[in-house]
């Protein structure tokens, strides 16, 4: 079981799906499912192994290599896991849409290229897979057509092109000075770089990883891309693809430049991890309040992805083993519940005929209970309610922030959590609770294949929430791989002297108390169930299905916060785009269309050459 | 009241009787089909506020009398000199099939008054968007405000007909 086989199966599978699609849709669906399943099995067999092997074919004199270690394995599992679930999900979700061969092939191709970036042993193959990932994502974002989707596609590809160009320059400058690109060797050489080059490489790499991770200044592409992409793909996009940026940061901060170099690069307080932490903090708060004001279900989730990215960066930049464990665990948690939420939003859209506007939905708990449970558990995970996985990772991040003496960052993170509670509840309330409008009376439940991923992810959220030991042991191994001493993890939580976390006591206490209260309610109280229209409206009989309070759900808060949270970064980028457009218009004027001018240009050029030579004779 | 208005009124419309019972009040008696034109004429002269529409039941003469009370807000530049003045326009319509053109096209706020008159007197207003019940829960053969509606008789036989509930175990 080698990594090359894994990559081969992934890439081959993608191309084969397209070919099979031409033969018969059923075959293609089956093959896509089989391929995704096989990949998950293969990656699970690779657990614990860590090796590095050169690939037979070189590229322009550079030998390419692949490697497998705990860090790559951790990210690979998230990629392939979510990939499998979204393929299962899209079997029914995409059934009646057109261009399905193209969709499945590109989806698997994106998964394959993400896998490639994660298992790449040297920077060149990392870059090659990174580029393939970005242009294949571009091809899938605007699949649904429509002016907004096209705008989102262009915005994404321009920003990811900027990212990959800066990365190319950084990689080549490393290659030029050390003429090797394999990550392990580079880590060795890094000590001997000059300060200037280290900074140059650091800045360029972080620009790329900040763009793809949608942190604050370069987040503008994410809300459009996620809201416009097809649901199963936006689940992949926000769960895993955006986290490649974080994998890059790990490589940058721990594998290549190493933490000692980062320390040297700091001018007093302005160290790299400090700047990164503050960017993360701003992202959390800004995205939380922006998400508050959206009334499109997928846009809220997109903004929450932007926000949650901030937590991971906070965890990573604290650089203690606790913070690192928190940040890494948060990646896993976030990818579970954000995928779940996008699946739920997609199911709602699928069943209500494409309605994503939160102001016109309501009361769907009566018709789609499974979607409700998935949505509620996903939101609880997003908020970090105890007994869910989000709680454990956030607890780790907060504890590391507080103990490291960074209260203001912790404050931003806490505020972000409360913002999450507000928009999380808005998501649940406007879709599921309240009055069921008449037009949704006969909405059916979720089809089976769409329910499977939702149920799996819901169970995962609780499993990791109640038994955090399982994922934490993997996270701990990632920490040790990156060079942190391991924290002693028990199956129930983190027993440590400075305030322990023991989830079993929480679970037991809540279960007992809950059971007692439920007994009291059932035994003593006698209740008769009542229809949704039999509610108090000062004696009047309200028209059925029309009384659901959704429009302007947080309008008072919005009136206070609104002016401060305008997305001026987005406006700034659009202004630059407009400016380049006008510059292009001006430069086109040079070619006036008269032959006379053109000939005059030639003669002027010659005259200029000769004049300069005579005057200063530089040549 | 300025003479000019009275002269112009009597000159433009022939079958009008105009009196000035009080210093700031003018009563105009107009036939049924002239009502709308008089109203628009007065509105043109600045009397753009319709206080109310009411109805009087002259049972002996077999007629209803519709009373429109107009006044000027006095804000518009071409309004009458003294804002306090009122004009009362009266018209008589037969009692059997009482139908009148609704004045809602000129005065939007006439809608509830006309609905009330329709419900309680039975006068039909053509062109009225919603002649649905306003106050009463039930429909009556004779609209209640008509003089020939005997309330005591109605109460006795309608409310009398509601049987008391649970007679047998009523321990007084």
């Amino acid at each position, binding site marked *: 079981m080698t990594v090359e086989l894994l990559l081969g199966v992934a890439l081959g599978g993608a191309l084969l799906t397209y070919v099979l699609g031409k033969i018969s849709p059923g075959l293609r669906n089956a093959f896509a499912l089989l391929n995704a399943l096989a990949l998950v099995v293969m990656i699970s067999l690779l657990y614990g192994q860590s090796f590095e092997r050169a690939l037979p*074919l*070189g*590229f*322009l*004199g550079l030998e390419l290599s692949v490697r497998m270690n705990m860090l790559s394995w951790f990210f690979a599992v998230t990629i392939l896991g979510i990939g499998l679930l979204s393929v299962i999900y899209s079997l029914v979700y995409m059934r009646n849409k057109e261009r399905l061969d193209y969709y499945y092939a590109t989806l698997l191709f994106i998964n394959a290229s993400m896998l490639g970036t994660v298992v790449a042993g040297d920077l060149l193959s990392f*870059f*090659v*897979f990174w*580029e*393939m990932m970005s*242009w294949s994502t*571009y*091809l899938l974002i*605007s*699949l649904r*057509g429509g002016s907004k*989707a*096209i705008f989102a*596609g*262009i915005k994404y*590809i*321009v920003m990811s*092109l*900027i990212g990959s*160009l800066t990365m*190319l*320059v950084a990689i*080549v*400058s490393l*290659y*030029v000075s050390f003429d090797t690109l394999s990550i392990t060797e580079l880590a060795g050489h890094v000590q001997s770089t000059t300060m200037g080059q280290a900074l140059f490489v650091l800045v360029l790499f972080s620009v790329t990883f900040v763009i793809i991770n949608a942190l604050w200044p370069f987040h503008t592409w994410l809300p459009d891309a996620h809201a416009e992409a097809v649901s199963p793909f936006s689940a992949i996009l926000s769960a895993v693809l955006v986290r490649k940026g974080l994998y890059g940061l790990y490589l940058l901060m721990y594998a290549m430049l190493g933490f000692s170099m980062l320390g040297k690069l700091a001018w007093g307080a302005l160290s790299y991890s400090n700047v990164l932490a503050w960017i993360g903090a701003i992202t959390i708060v800004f995205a939380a309040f922006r998400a508050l004001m959206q009334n499109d279900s997928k846009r809220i989730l997109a903004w929450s992805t932007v926000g949650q990215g901030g937590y991971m960066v906070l965890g990573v930049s604290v650089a203690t083993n606790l913070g690192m464990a928190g940040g890494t665990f948060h990646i896993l948690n976030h990818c579970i519940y954000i995928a779940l939420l996008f699946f739920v939003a997609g199911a709602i859209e699928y069943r209500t005929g494409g309605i994503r506007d939160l102001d016109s939905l309501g009361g769907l708990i009566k018709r789609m209970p499974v979607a409700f449970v998935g949505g509620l558990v996903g939101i609880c995970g997003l908020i970090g309610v105890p007994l869910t996985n989000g709680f454990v990772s956030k607890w780790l991040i907060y504890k590391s922030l507080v103990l490291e003496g960074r209260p203001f960052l912790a404050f931003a993170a806490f505020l972000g959590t409360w913002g999450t509670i507000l928009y999380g509840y808005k998501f649940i309330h406007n879709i599921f609770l309240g009055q069921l409008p008449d037009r949704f009376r006969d909405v059916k439940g979720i089809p089976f294949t769409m329910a499977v991923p939702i149920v799996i992810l819901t169970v995962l959220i609780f499993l990791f929430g109640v038994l955090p030991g399982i994922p934490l042991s993997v996270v701990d191994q990632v920490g040790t791989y990156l060079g942190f001493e391991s924290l002693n993890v028990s199956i129930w939580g983190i027993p440590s002297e400075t305030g322990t976390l023991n989830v079993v006591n929480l679970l037991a206490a809540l279960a007992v108390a809950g059971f007692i209260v439920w007994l009291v309610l059932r035994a003593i109280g006698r209740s008769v169930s009542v229809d949704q229209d039999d509610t108090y409206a000062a004696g009047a009989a309200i028209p059925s299905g029309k009384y659901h309070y959704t429009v302007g759900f947080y309008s008072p808060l919005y009136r206070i916060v609104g002016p401060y949270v305008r997305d001026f970064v987005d406006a700034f980028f659009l202004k630059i785009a407009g400016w*380049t*457009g006008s*510059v*292009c*218009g001006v*430069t*086109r004027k*040079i*070619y006036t*269309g008269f*032959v006379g*001018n*053109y*000939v005059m*240009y*030639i*003669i*002027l*050029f*010659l005259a200029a*050459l*000769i004049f300069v*030579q005579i005057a200063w*004779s*530089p*040549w | 009241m300025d003479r000019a208005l009275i002269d112009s009124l009597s000159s433009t419309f022939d079958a009008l009787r105009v009196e000035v019972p009080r210093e700031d009040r003018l009563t105009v008696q107009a036939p049924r089909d002239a009502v709308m034109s008089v109203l628009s004429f007065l509105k043109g002269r600045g009397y753009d506020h319709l206080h109310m529409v009411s109805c009087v039941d002259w049972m002996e003469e077999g007629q209803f009398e519709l009373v429109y009370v107009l006044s000027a807000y006095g804000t518009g530049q071409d309004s009458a000199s003294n804002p306090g003045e009122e004009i009362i326009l009266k018209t008589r319509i037969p009692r059997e099939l009482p139908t009148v053109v609704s004045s809602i096209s000129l005065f939007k706020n006439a809608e509830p008054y006309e609905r009330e008159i329709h419900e309680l007197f039975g006068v039909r207003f053509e062109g009225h968007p919603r002649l649905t019940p306003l106050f009463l829960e039930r429909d009556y053969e004779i609209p209640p405000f008509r003089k020939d509606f005997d309330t005591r008789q109605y109460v006795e036989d309608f409310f009398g007909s509601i049987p008391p509930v649970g007679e047998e175990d009523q321990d007084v």
Partner: protein
Amino acid sequence: MVSPVLLIAVPLGLAFLVPLISLVSRRAAMLVPVVACLFNLVVAITLMPGVLDQPVVEKIGGFPPPFCINLYAGPVGVLFAALIALAGLGIAVYAMAYIRTGPVDRYHLLYLLLLVGATGVVLTGDVFNLFVFFEILCISSYALVAYMGNKSGLEASVKYLIQGAVGSGLLLMGIGLLYGQFGTLNMADIANRMGSVNQVSVFVPLALIISGLGVEAAIFPLNAWLPDAHSSAPSSISAILSGIAIEVGLYAMVRMIFTVFGATSILMFMVFLGALTLLLGELCAFAQSNVKRMLAYSSIGQIGLILFALAMATSYSVAGGLFQLLSHTLSKALLFLAAGYMIYRSGSMEISSLHGMGKRMPLTSLAFTIGAFSLVGLPPFVGFPSKFLIVRAALARQQSIFTILLGFVLLGTLIEGAYFFRVVQAIYFKKGSGETGRSYAPAVALVSMFIFAALIIFVGIYPQPVADAVGSAATELLDRAEYVRSVLQ
């Protein structure tokens, strides 16, 4: 041992046979260019391994070198000949289906002449011979631009003619001055004697030659003819022009600067000129709404990039420049061919008319997308290794000026990416108006597009053999003394 002269003689002979063959049957006339290019390709490939270590100097007319016109078939020359033959072959196959109306036999005659001119410029070792082949190339391209016979075609070719004539005039004056100064026309001989003359008097012919060749090579101030010429010419012609003609012009200029004059000091100016051409070409292309004009401006941009790379004059940079030249030829040819049939099917050259083409012509749109992605330099395609080499070369110079210029160059490629992706999105994701029946380009056109696409992907994934050839070509270009020694010994 096959002699390089065949590379020129055979196509020239076949060119003159075309009118005779067309009397017999029009279809046979179409096949002649294909046969000629195939022959050239085979000869070039057989020559290639031998030439890599020992260039072949072919003396015409039996006189010793300084007095005869000699052909210098070094790695550069043979590489270019192979490239011309390959591109010519693909486009000739495409033209069999594309060129139906009008004087078809004259088209094929001029087409072959253009190829002969190009191959001649690349192989010749004699300055005046270079001018002669250069004129053959220019004149046949003037005529071919006007082939469509419509108003815009004629107007464009007249403009091209005037500017080309001015350029050739300057070139001739330069060569005349050179001959006056050195009394010989053989490049190696001039290069040998260059040391003995003081630099100032040499500069005037250099300036003349640079601006003369610069017009054809389409560098910044001199390339005003290109947008009109390439957009109003028939697609196969604009493909060959963008693919071969301007590259050969650039090769000639570089050959003169590197080997004949050895004027290394002007290279810095050339680097700036290259970067400027790239930026202006991309900016103008961004503002276009007509597909072929956009492609024409992007050719200007790419030429700027190649010049930027070549003018840095290190072995990496010249190798990168030549590799970029090769990738540009392949991708731009594919783009023009694909655009040709899309425009033919949709009726107008506006991008707005290409909406929804993805559904109507799936294979042609796929070809267009592959060409676009490889031109922007995305990994699995041929554009990526060349971009990688150029970036490595720029950074290897370790000077801040080059890093800044590299920044501008990459900004140019970014803008290029922006407008190419805009078109790709219009093709695939926008709903097309009008009829939506699915239709395919004729089989022959598809075959030629398939050849280019296959090459682009193959070289993109496994660039090693091409990289070696380009590397040795770069050493030959840079090593002036070796050139002189191998010709004059």
